[in-house]
């Protein structure tokens, strides 16, 4: 105590606990990443560095199909969610309070408040009825479900960006006789673009990560990467699962880094 100057913000033991927490957060993740490069066939022993599990996962046609499905659904859902969320954000920000505004907020944030398992069984029941009625069992159900729960994640950064935007530029455009659409196209949209990109990325990550809702909504043969991995887990963890996890982890980190760079440009 005597060796260091007294700092008002220091609380005894807090830094130690914080470091323990950070170590505890990263050790399991790094272990998983390390094991994905394990050369041994068993997950229990270390058999030297090898890329064999990445090769195995890459050559596995089931994994390929699941990966394509995951990316496809995430792409569709993020584009759709971002589009409708952008419109909703334009309709709910920078306006005098209007009738029903709170109801819209609640509806948009609803997927964040309801436990995922409840939404999952609700969609299971609902889509089961539609499947019986129409006979359609395609991927549209998954896209619709993913779009719905991605909406709040797309909406939040877009709304934040809109709220921080200077209205005077748009007023200036209107003063120069730009039509509403031209003002939107040439003034609002370019200013809003980083927010939209950030929202789309979050939506993409969220869709890519989902396991519970997908597990309940999917029809036979519609596994995404996470539901495939969960299914594998039923038997035993395979080093291949670790390789897929690490690949997904890398993709998430990449997208998040991009997200941070995009949102930082704000000021």
């Amino acid at each position, binding site marked *: 105590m005597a060796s260091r100057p007294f700092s*008002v*913000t220091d609380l005894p*033991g*807090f830094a130690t*606990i*914080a470091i*323990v*927490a*950070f170590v*505890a*957060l990263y050790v*399991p*993740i790094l*272990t*998983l990443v390390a094991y994905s490069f394990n050369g041994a066939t068993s*997950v229990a022993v270390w058999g030297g560095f090898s890329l064999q599990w990445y090769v195995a996962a890459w050559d596995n046609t089931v994994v390929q199909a699941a990966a394509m499905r995951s990316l496809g659904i995430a792409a569709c859902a993020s584009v*759709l*969610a971002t*589009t*409708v969320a952008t*419109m*909703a954000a*334009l309709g709910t920000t920078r*306006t005098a309070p*209007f009738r*029903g505004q709170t109801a*819209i907020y609640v*509806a*948009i944030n*609803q*997927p964040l*408040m*309801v*436990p*995922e*398992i*409840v*939404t999952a*069984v*609700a*969609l*299971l*029941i609902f889509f089961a009825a539609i499947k019986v009625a129409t006979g359609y069992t395609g991927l549209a159900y998954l896209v*619709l479900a993913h779009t*719905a729960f991605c*909406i709040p994640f797309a909406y939040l950064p877009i709304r934040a960006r809109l709220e921080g935007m200077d209205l005077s530029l748009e007023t200036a455009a209107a003063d120069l006789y730009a039509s509403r659409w031209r003002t939107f196209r040439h003034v609002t949209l370019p200013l809003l673009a980083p927010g939209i990109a950030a929202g789309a990325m979050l939506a993409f990550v969220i869709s*890519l*990560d989902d*396991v*519970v809702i997908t597990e*309940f909504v999917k029809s036979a043969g519609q596994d995404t990467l*996470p539901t495939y*991995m*969960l299914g594998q887990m039923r038997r035993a963890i395979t080093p291949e699962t*670790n390789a897929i*996890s690490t690949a997904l*982890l890398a993709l*998430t*980190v990449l997208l*998040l880094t991009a997200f941070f760079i995009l949102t930082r440009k704000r000021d």
Partner: protein
Amino acid sequence: MTRSAEDQQRAETTRRNWALSAPALLVLALGASGPLLIVLVYSFLRPGSYSGVEWQFTTEAWQGIFLTRDIFDGTLGWADAHLTIFWRSVKLSLTTTLLTFAFGFPTAWFIATRPAKARAFWLFLITIPFWTNLLIRTFAINEVIRNEGLMNTVLMKLGVIAEPIRIIYTDTAVLIGMTYVYLPLMVLPLFAAIDRFDMKLLEAGYDLYASRWQVLRRVVLPIVKPGIVAGSILVFVPSLGAYVTPRVLGGGKNMMIGNFIELQFGQGRNWPLGSALSMLLLLIVMVALLIYVRAATKGAPHGGH
């Protein structure tokens, strides 16, 4: 502008705002909120013979959550198995919330008191696990705590233990797993609250001869309370409905409400009971959220938001 023209313009803006929000609301109605109403309806129906439901009104499913009819003499008794699962879920979720707070508060404090540049780095470190797939994080903690996992291997190599400690597929494993996966959810709102906290108040406290503990308890905690409540809700709500973590780390036996609900839609083939359980879970969550809103709107002497 005349009064009526102003009204007319306001009405037009409202209409435009609703039109812009309509597509999002439609998707949500079909893909989130609407189906919840169907679950409510299903919870008052009779189970179908194979699966699904028969359209006949009954409150049996709701009673079935708490009561069970003896198959031999037909007498009603408490549904012990269901109550055990509920109790386990509530207990594990509350303990998870407490543990994430115990680790999360010092962590959030640590990040918030770093110099600006270092703070961005620590914050980024906490964000990566936050956005990493929950399933992957569950696999990751599984790598550490399973019988041949990192923890047992290291402890055995060091000679601390002769036999692996078996915690996988126990409630302890589920608790460790949930604390691990939900820790970032606690840290982020706590950080946001502590970041707004005026550190000058600490000096004022010390000047008035308060001990560190007194300052923490009487000055810091009351002011950052909204963050504490937000973090607790963010951890408690998903913990209570957790599905993936108990399934992977708890095995088949250590179920929580989420797994039990799934069971009713799978092997159990009792959709009304599953629906009633889902509605009850939702009800508990809504009550928790209500408490949150109450606690967050009052008791923020520093202005809050």
